[in-house]
């Protein structure tokens, strides 16, 4: 029987009913501008600050440390460029980041390079963990910022952010972490991590696209990215996106409340992983095992086939997933993350990312396990690469 299995939660998530219900009044009746002094505006301002406080509590921050933005990419750009230009005023023109960051962070760094900054891209080990030795060797008193993601979007690696932050601070650099994939999937506490800035986004945790936030630790000064009319304590201009901010507050509270369920998600991921690796020859796990990776993330490479074809055939069966193949994007190179952990081009083209959630059931997993092996076989039967392997084995 045909099902629909959504296994692409790292790309985006469906908006939950509770989030929609929480948002609706702010689209229909409570449509005031929180900057207005009249009753409609005050009503919105109170709701805005209430939402800010609830969100802050979910990550161990103070309300005044939460700044709303339009998306994770804006949060990344603001943190990285804002810290870089603030650092430049004090003679700091060096940035350290990792080779496996999201493109929003990588391309923000590339833009800074064009503007005269020096950027060090830290390498990672085969599991995608940033090298602390490389960090220690690269960091100087000219380093304005260290930017390393909390959890990787493709292979789920959880980085040692607290240790990285400690090293950054020993050298007077600011520490930023892109926690877009982490928040709502693993416990995130800004004080335990010791970071100066942390980015997270609504649409990865069942809020709509178009709302995100940047945590900026009290006392940390970074330049503005969007100047405007004094909103967000004059740090981020633009009339507050009230319905979406309320949605984000509801979504993050729900996600944090459901964190105990992530153990089950990890068990289901391991069930999928074990059975895929067992059923399909010439398949390899990309990234770490167990608690070292996000509970819902699974990334497997299949030799002799190309990922986009696999993705399309899975889609025909109602299974939504992603691939690190070049052919799935505008670029001609496969995933920079897979290449950074040492996966050869050939295998990177045949990678499958399944990102499951608390909504994914055992039946969903079994459906994937039923549909995937024949799809891989079908593509291998069509592949001239597989032909040479089968002939060599005869």
């Amino acid at each position, binding site marked *: 029987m045909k099902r629909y299995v959504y296994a692409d939660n790292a790309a985006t998530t469906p908006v939950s009913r509770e989030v929609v219900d929480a948002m609706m009044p702010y689209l229909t009746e409570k449509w005031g501008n929180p900057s207005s002094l009249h009753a409609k505006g005050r009503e919105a301002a109170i709701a805005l600050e209430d939402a800010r406080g609830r969100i802050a509590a979910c990550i161990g921050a103070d309300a005044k440390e939460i700044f709303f933005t339009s998306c994770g990419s804006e949060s990344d750009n603001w943190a990285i460029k804002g810290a870089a230009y603030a650092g430049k005023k004090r003679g700091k023109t060096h940035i350290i980041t990792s080779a496996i960051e999201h493109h929003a962070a990588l391309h923000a760094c590339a833009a800074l390079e064009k503007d005269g900054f020096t950027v060090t891209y830290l390498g990672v080990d085969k599991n995608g963990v940033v090298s602390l030795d490389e960090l220690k060797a690269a960091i100087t008193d000219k380093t304005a910022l260290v930017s390393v993601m909390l959890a990787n979007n493709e292979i789920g690696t959880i980085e040692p952010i607290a240790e990285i932050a400690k090293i950054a601070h020993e050298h007077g650099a600011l520490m930023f972490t892109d926690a877009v994939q982490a928040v709502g999937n693993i416990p995130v506490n800004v004080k335990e991590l010791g970071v100066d800035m942390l980015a997270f986004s609504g649409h990865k945790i069942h809020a709509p696209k178009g709302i995100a936030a940047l945590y900026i630790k009290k006392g940390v000064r970074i330049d503005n990215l969007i100047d405007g009319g004094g909103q967000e304590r004059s740090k981020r201009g633009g009339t507050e996106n009230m319905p979406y901010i309320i949605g984000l507050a509801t979504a993050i509270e729900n996600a944090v409340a459901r964190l105990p369920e992530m153990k089950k998600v990890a068990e289901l991921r391991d069930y999928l992983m074990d059975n895929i690796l067992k059923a399909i020859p010439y398949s390899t796990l990309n990234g770490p095992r167990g608690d070292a990776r996000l509970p819902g993330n699974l990334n497997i490479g299949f030799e*002799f086939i*190309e990922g986009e*074809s696999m993705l399309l055939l899975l889609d025909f069966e109602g299974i939504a997933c992603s691939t690190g193949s070049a052919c799935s994007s505008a670029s001609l190179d496969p995933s920079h993350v897979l290449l950074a952990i040492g996966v050869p*081009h050939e295998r990177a083209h045949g990678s499958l990312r399944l990102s499951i959630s608390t909504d994914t059931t055992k039946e969903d997993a079994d459906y994937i396990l039923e549909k995937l092996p024949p799809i891989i076989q079908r593509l291998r039967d*069509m592949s*001239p*690469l597989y032909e040479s392997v089968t002939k060599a084995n005869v």
Partner: protein
Amino acid sequence: MSMLYSEEVMDHFANPRNVGVIEDADGVGEIGNAKCGDIMKMYLKIENNIIVDVKFKTFGCGAAVATSSMATEMIKGKSVDDALSLTNKAVIDALGGLPAVKIHCSVLAEEAVKCALADYYKKQGIDHPVIKEAEEIMGRGEDHDHAIPEE
């Protein structure tokens, strides 16, 4: 940038025509490499200057499979000269268009046909310009599909 495939592309990807191998092929052409993410291998059976059978195997994306499939359909039953004049543009048109980043797949399909025909002429001991053309195509190696500018 649109990544959407036309109905014809999806049809040829979902139900590729002429997949397989011809064991006693008169001409075999292989183009592309695994590093770039696509390889096409084409087998021709030729009798009295007519392509009586054609099969292909492809490692690649949806467009790579669809262009291979369409190219085989377009040369099957045709004369060798007709096959020699197959262009990637004709393949694109027959497929109702391709996303810009997938144009190189149609180039590979044209080249795979040319390489298979060159192999045929070589086996026949006939000197034909397509042999030199195929050698140039093969010589370009890894750069074969890097002709598309970044968007």
